[in-house]
């Protein structure tokens, strides 16, 4: 399941809901991305996430489908937020559940790596009223490529 939303999510409730009705699940792995305080001296800072409605959902569904093809997953969830966020806020949740831990660990890692280079989101960092678009990192491309062998 994928969700793209501006509102926050309840991590505990999401994880419980994912595994509650499926007792074949033996392991569940999750990752939460948070807004970091990168300018501790600034009076005001925020991170605004822009996205491409329509394509975002399509790409997240494709990425999730790819994970389900590669690993025997019992359940998976991707929640990605957009809009204005502040340090400490949750940005993204990825959770995968399987009978055994390896598939859950690996697919969770895979989903985050793929999402970072394929899902059409862009971060605008604002520090004391000045906005700057975050640049993509080569290390993210490398992280995606390691899953392509």
């Amino acid at each position, binding site marked *: 399941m994928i969700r793209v939303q501006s509102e926050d999510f309840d991590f505990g409730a999401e994880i419980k809901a994912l595994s509650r009705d499926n007792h074949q699940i033996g392991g569940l792995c999750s990752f939460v991305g948070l807004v970091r305080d990168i300018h501790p001296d600034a009076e005001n800072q925020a991170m605004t996430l822009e996205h491409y409605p329509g394509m975002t959902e399509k790409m997240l569904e494709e990425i999730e489908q790819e994970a389900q093809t590669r690993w025997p997953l019992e359940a998976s969830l991707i929640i990605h937020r957009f809009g204005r966020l502040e340090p400490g806020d949750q940005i993204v949740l990825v959770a995968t559940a399987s009978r055994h831990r390896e598939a859950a660990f690996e697919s969770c890692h895979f989903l985050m790596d793929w999402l*970072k280079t*394929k899902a059409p989101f862009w971060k605008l960092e604002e520090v004391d009223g000045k906005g700057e678009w975050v640049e993509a990192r080569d290390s993210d491309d490398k992280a995606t490529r390691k899953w392509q062998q």
Partner: protein
Amino acid sequence: MKLLYFAWVKDRIGLSEETVSLPEQVTTISELLDWLSSRGENYASAINEGKTVRIAVNQNYAPEDRSITDGDEIALFPPVTGG
């Protein structure tokens, strides 16, 4: 054709979207980028910035040699930075 722009591509061009009629000789993404660049400095600076602009046709990533038609939705945007 519907064109969508995101992040700094949008900022430089000064628009988030527009509808254009393609000249007859524009049949691929690469030709579309050349044509857009010729429409003004704002387009040229967004499109030629380090050749990093990514293209989606009908909400799928597409290479520059991909052919396009007037009914397509084409998006131009920087490398993505979500997650």
